[in-house]
């Protein structure tokens, strides 16, 4: 037993180092002066400089893509959680014909490879004049984020005892009120997990954001970083700094709500 425990620790250590090292290199690289980056960048830069970060916000107006990403990912998350939870509640609780089929179709929608839908979506968005607008990103994002949200939440709602909302309705609440006052508070861990996953997906999304925006006014963080590359050179220091800035909020979110995410994802797997 003891030997096995030690092996497990070793394997975990290797995995953690393997996963964390690239991130560490990015942090170190973002603090390394440009000149040193190509002379066998040191493991830790000396002197560590904040030049790249400063350049991000002075030369490049990096706050603009951050704002865009916040708006797009935030709105997508908001819609997903509100509309998605109502939809999931209906699917979890109401009895109606074709429910299994509907759930299947919802799942199927999220399975199309993005690259296959990019061109038709572009034509569609152009015809309704939504190219290079926030709704032009939020609506396509909902197509892949909503099925995920609905599936997660259906699983979560199903494991809440139906007697609770029955009690609420006998007590005089309408179904919607029972949902709001009894189900939603109890489903908060599931809603939080869903919100974070949706936010992270939308925050990281690249292909749609690249295809449906035309200029820096609406470009999101991943697109902006990809377009740092100039004609003759790639400003690697700034790219790394931008990557850190883009990753930090997501990492903080996930770390802060780690337990809730796991709770939400494993809901219904075992009866609590």
């Amino acid at each position, binding site marked *: 037993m003891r030997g096995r425990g030690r092996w497990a620790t070793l394997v975990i250590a290797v995995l953690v180092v393997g996963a964390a090292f690239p991130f560490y290199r990015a942090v170190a690289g973002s603090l390394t002066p440009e000149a040193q980056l190509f002379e066998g960048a040191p493991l830790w830069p000396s002197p560590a400089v904040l030049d790249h970060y400063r350049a991000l916000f002075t030369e490049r107006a990096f706050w603009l893509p951050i704002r865009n990403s916040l708006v797009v990912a935030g709105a997508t998350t908001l819609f997903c959680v509100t509309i998605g939870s109502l939809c999931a509640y209906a699917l979890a609780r109401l009895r109606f014909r074709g429910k299994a089929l509907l759930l299947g179709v919802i799942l199927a929608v999220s399975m199309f490879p993005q690259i296959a839908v990019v061109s038709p979506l572009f034509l569609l968005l152009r015809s309704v004049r939504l190219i290079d607008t926030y709704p032009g990103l939020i609506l396509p994002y909902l197509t892949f984020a909503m099925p995920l949200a609905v599936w997660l939440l259906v699983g979560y709602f199903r494991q809440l*005892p139906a007697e609770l909302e029955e009690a609420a*309705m*006998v007590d005089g609440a309408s179904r919607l009120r029972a949902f709001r006052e009894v189900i939603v508070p109890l489903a908060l861990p599931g809603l939080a997990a869903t919100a974070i996953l949706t936010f992270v997906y939308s925050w990281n999304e690249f292909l749609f954001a690249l295809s449906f925006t035309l200029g820096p006014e609406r470009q999101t963080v991943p697109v902006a970083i990809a377009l740092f590359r100039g004609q003759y050179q790639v400003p690697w220091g700034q790219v790394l700094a931008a990557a850190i800035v883009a990753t930090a909020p997501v990492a903080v979110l996930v770390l802060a709500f780690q337990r809730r995410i796991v709770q939400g994802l494993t809901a219904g797997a075992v009866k609590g």
Partner: protein
Amino acid sequence: MAAIRLEKVWKTYPNGHVAARGVDLAIADGEFMVLVGPSGCGKSTALRMIAGLETPSEGKVIIGDRDVTELPPQERDIAMVFQSYALYPHMTVRENLAFGLRMRGVAPAAIAQRVDGAARALGLDSVLDRKPGQLSGGQRQRVALGRAIVREPKVFLFDEPLSNLDAKLRLETRAELARLHRRLAATMVYVTHDQEEALTLGSRVAVMREGRVEQVGPPLEVYRRPATVFVATFVGSPAMNLLAADLLPGSQAGGRTPVAGATLGVRPHDIAVVPPGSGDLDALVDVVEPRGSELLIYLRLGPTGDGPEVRVITPPDLEVAPDRVVGLRFDRGRLHFFDPATGGRVG
């Protein structure tokens, strides 16, 4: 206060299961009606249709003089105590009790007053600010009860409310329910699978089986004159003995004229153990179970014990041991006969 009527109510679930097959039941204003039967007999479905949590496939549900068949639960002015109690886990006891009043738009001052009153009556004053997770099973049960009482509804519905309590608490709460019914004089419908609970609590008892009502009547009547073989064996503990009537010589005397091949029913309490040869039949003692206030004896009919099994209840001081032959005397005034084909009572 209100009377309740179920008229020819059928319920077929989408999966094809038929839970109610033409249930007709009239519950008088202020009555304590107990629906009792084995699991799957449709008693809970019947209750849920009164509550509005299920809609009948056919038939009508009437509360007071209003047809509520299509009304959602929140418009029926009923209160229900669930088997799992269904307390709102994220609310304190006070908020749980107040929830129904708040949903109905009662003024906050009146809510506080009624919640305090109910809490005092149920001994919940000291736990008003706790959440259900911090309460004992008995306290949760009281909160569930309190949540129904504060509403002062027309009708109380109970779905096996005692089944999660330990034996001692169950007896106490049973007595409390009886007291509550007397005090409120409200119409109460109570579902249980426990025939003893049914007999002790009900003003009337409806015995259900496979989606139908087999017999409705006051508890003693159901016990003394079971209408069918099923009711006879379901009500009363230990269960009534069923024998072929012709096993008992002369049983058909006394003005009874059972059909040919009738089934004879006799309760374990209505058989006396006597010396061998001096009773109606001889039997071999199989197992003796002392139950404190009485003995439960399992016997096999016939001096060699090759006949059917019979259960007998006797006073606790009877000298009896396994493998001894004893005589059995049947109380002639308390024999029941049933038609073997229909299961219905004869005579």
